């Protein structure tokens, strides 16, 4: 894979329409549908483009898969659907499919002159939502919008279901949740979420034809948080609501989490099914792509689900790896549609295998309590089991292993505490929870290590020790600020899996960190939400941590994992290239914040005191940063991720990571521009 392929390598990326708005005009739907076409055959590409334009779609064409990926990463919310050829010189179409599914959770249509049953079947198993035989006719293209709508509907349905389930659960389980969040917190979250949702998706929700929920980009950090939360809860007990609370990411909705969870479980299943190989490779993912993390998680979950034995460590590793890995090949294939099928839990071959298994078996929490998923209940249960186990293990690992990314999680809590004040009240309540999550890892220094651990995985794949940056992004603005090292560093920026959310990575200056991260760091979960509201879809980039809308902010950060750790959140992330901090590996250990300093820093610093301003700044910054920083894998997960998406992404990634095999080819993940 050509790592250097970045924007520059997009030799023929032409956009027929300038606007990459997040949503198409609902009135004229499907007109304005934003399609990305990937095909190395220039003749076909041109014909397709013309045909699509005749359907009044907005077409962007790309003749290289890697270029397409980076384009997608840069514009998290920039596309509605992807059409890709199967046979391409630089990357197998199915691999691309997996990537997209994991990272961006967009519907992907495969096409080929090959109409053999095997190939078509491959498309199905890898999650393609359709398969077109060349020569493609206009009639076939006219109806591709149905896949977009269908996906949105499914996502929405999941969220709705989770939502209602959660709502119902909320009260009865108030006491249970006490540990995790205060009622104020929840209500805040709910209201902010509602606010956000209303703002962003008001119409979309109701209008199924224009279902356009902002996608959450599950950056590496965000994903790590997610995994940590799942671990903590136990794969069986990890319900989106609780996970959400644990993660405490402003702007993140339960739907996001539920969807992500689903994918994660799929990923785990896939892992178990696929791997017999205990690949530690994912541990040191060379791929920078943050996507891997999500895939990792997904894989882990899957494997766990399947095997129920995924040791926490492996999960963590996977996650870290996932983060680092760009291409979760096998895992990626986990299409949402196949989720059901995926839950045929066979013996999970824990890739992580090494001894972590025992950990997993310990946890039998039900990961998906009340989470409506496509899976059948028993499948779900299985998933939970394994997921819980694995997750649980993951958590366990956290304390111990610095590398596994858990540190990130751990860091968060810690940071959050000090930051509590800084954060809006919404956040604060949540933050404390974090510490529980991580518990052990030492936020400060340790975190950095931990971050490294996690990030490191990602970064390792990346190569350069971006540690600082990456990590921070992972943590999503957790208050972790405390330890500068934390978060930020570990994550290899190169891949910046999506530092997204707020990876407060705390390490940077405590204050700053919290605020940073797209959502201004940690403290401003609320702020972030607000920001999100404000800029619901401005960005094109979605912040993984936040719900679709808000996530935009966050994501920018993610993506820029390169950005200085922690603080990078805003600064760093958003633009690795921009801030320059991004590349600042040296950030690790240093106050990330300062490192990240580049232009953004100033903002953040100031912002520290005011979260809002900070957030504002950061968001702004992020925005700018993110956009340009297409190459840095900015967000691990594109905005579009609904919960399902996330899960599948996770799963896919996990699979990829876990598998570590050729199939997943994590190494290949570095397709994205993430510098290794």
């Amino acid at each position, binding site marked *: 894979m050509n790592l250097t392929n970045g924007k520059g390598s997009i030799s023929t990326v032409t956009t027929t329409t300038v606007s990459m708005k997040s949503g198409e005009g609902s009135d004229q739907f499907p007109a304005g549908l934003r399609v990305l076409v990937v095909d*190395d055959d*220039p*003749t076909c590409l*041109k*014909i397709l483009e013309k045909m699509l334009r005749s359907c009044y779609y907005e077409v962007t064409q790309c003749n290289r898969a890697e270029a397409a990926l980076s384009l997608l990463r840069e514009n998290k919310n920039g596309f509605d659907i992807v059409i890709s050829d199967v046979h391409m010189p630089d990357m197998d179409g199915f691999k691309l499919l997996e990537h997209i599914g994991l990272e961006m959770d967009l519907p992907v249509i495969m096409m080929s002159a090959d109409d053999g049953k095997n190939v078509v079947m491959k498309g199905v198993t890898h999650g393609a939502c359709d398969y077109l035989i060349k*020569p*493609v*006719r206009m009639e076939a293209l006219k109806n591709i919008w149905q896949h977009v709508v269908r996906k949105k509907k499914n996502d929405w349905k999941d969220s709705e279901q989770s939502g209602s389930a959660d709502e119902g659960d909320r009260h009865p389980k108030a006491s249970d949740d006490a540990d995790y969040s205060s009622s104020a917190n929840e209500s805040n979250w709910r209201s902010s979420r509602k606010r956000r949702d209303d703002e962003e998706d008001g119409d979309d929700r109701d209008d199924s034809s224009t279902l356009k929920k902002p996608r959450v980009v599950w950056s590496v950090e965000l994903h790590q948080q997610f995994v940590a939360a799942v671990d903590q809860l136990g794969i069986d007990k990890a319900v989106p609501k609780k996970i959400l609370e644990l993660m405490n990411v402003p702007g993140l909705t339960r739907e996001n989490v539920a969807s992500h969870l689903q994918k994660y479980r799929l990923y785990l299943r896939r892992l178990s099914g696929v791997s017999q190989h205990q690949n530690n490779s994912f541990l040191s993912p060379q791929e920078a792509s943050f996507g891997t993390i999500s895939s990792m998680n997904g894989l882990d979950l899957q494997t766990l689900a399947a095997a129920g034995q995924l040791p926490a460590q492996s999960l963590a590793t996977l996650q870290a790896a996932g983060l680092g890995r760009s291409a979760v090949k096998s895992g990626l294939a986990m299409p949402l549609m196949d989720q059901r099928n995926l839950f045929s839990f066979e013996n999970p071959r824990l890739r992580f295998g090494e001894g972590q298994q025992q950990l997993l078996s310990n946890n039998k929490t039900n990961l998906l309590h009340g989470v409506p998923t496509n899976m059948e209940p028993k499948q779900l249960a299985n998933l939970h089991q394994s997921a819980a186990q694995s997750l649980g293990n993951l958590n366990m690992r956290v304390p111990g292993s610095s590398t596994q990314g858990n540190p990130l999680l751990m860091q968060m809590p810690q940071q959050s505490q000090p930051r509590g004040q800084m954060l809006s009240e919404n956040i604060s309540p949540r933050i404390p929870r974090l510490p529980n999550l991580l518990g052990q890892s030492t936020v400060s220094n340790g975190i950095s290590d931990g971050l490294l651990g996690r990030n490191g995985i990602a970064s390792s794949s990346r190569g350069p020790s971006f540690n600082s940056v990456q990590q921070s992004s992972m943590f999503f603005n957790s208050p972790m600020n405390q330890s500068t090292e934390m978060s930020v560093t570990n994550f290899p920026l190169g891949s910046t899996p999506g530092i997204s959310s707020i990876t407060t990575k705390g390490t940077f200056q405590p204050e700053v960190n919290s605020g940073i991260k797209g959502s201004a760091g940690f403290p401003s979960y609320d702020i972030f939400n607000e920001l999100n509201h404000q800029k619901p879809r401005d960005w094109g980039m979605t912040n993984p941590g936040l719900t679709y809308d808000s996530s935009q902010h966050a994501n920018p950060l993610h993506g820029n994992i390169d950005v200085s750790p922690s603080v990078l959140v805003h600064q760093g992330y958003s633009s690795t290239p921009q801030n320059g901090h991004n590349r600042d590996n040296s950030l690790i250990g240093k106050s990330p914040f300062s490192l990240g300093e580049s232009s953004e820093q100033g903002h953040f610093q100031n912002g520290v005191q005011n979260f809002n301003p900070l957030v504002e700044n950061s968001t702004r910054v992020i925005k700018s940063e993110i956009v340009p920083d297409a190459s840095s894998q900015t967000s691990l997960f594109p905005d579009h991720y609904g919960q399902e998406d996330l899960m599948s992404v996770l799963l896919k990634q996990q699979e990829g990571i876990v598998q570590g095999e050729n199939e997943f080819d994590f190494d290949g993940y570095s397709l994205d521009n993430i510098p290794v």
Partner: protein
Amino acid sequence: MDVGQMRRQWMDYIKSMFEERFLDGQFLQLQQLQDENNPEFVFEVVSLFFDDSERILKDLSFALEQQSVDFKKVDAHVHQFKGSSASIGAQGVKNACIAFRNFCEEQNIDACRRCLLQVKQEYFVVKNKLETLLRLEQQIVAAGGSIPIMELGF
């Protein structure tokens, strides 16, 4: 020749290409895509196809001349050629490619070389015809006429 005559000539020519299976319905799709916003669409696409094909044929020849032939690579090339020719509607070329791929699977080097010759032949014939057709189109347009809209079943 007046425009009317040119148009008729064009129609006859394209009809024969269909009947002789040099072209198939896909070419009509291309024609339908051409409109006032893209008056040169067919010409552009066909030109692209020509350029790309020359490249593929060159690669194919090179690959088959090797001491030890990499059939995977050959197959990949043929597959791509099949795709692009199918997209253009060059039916003859496409069919030749299909046969070619079968022999690639069998790793039959002699048959493959023969297939390559066949594919080349088909390609050059259809290229010739398309160029003639396009030239006719240009003349029609230059004379102020419009290209007839063809539909299958004529």
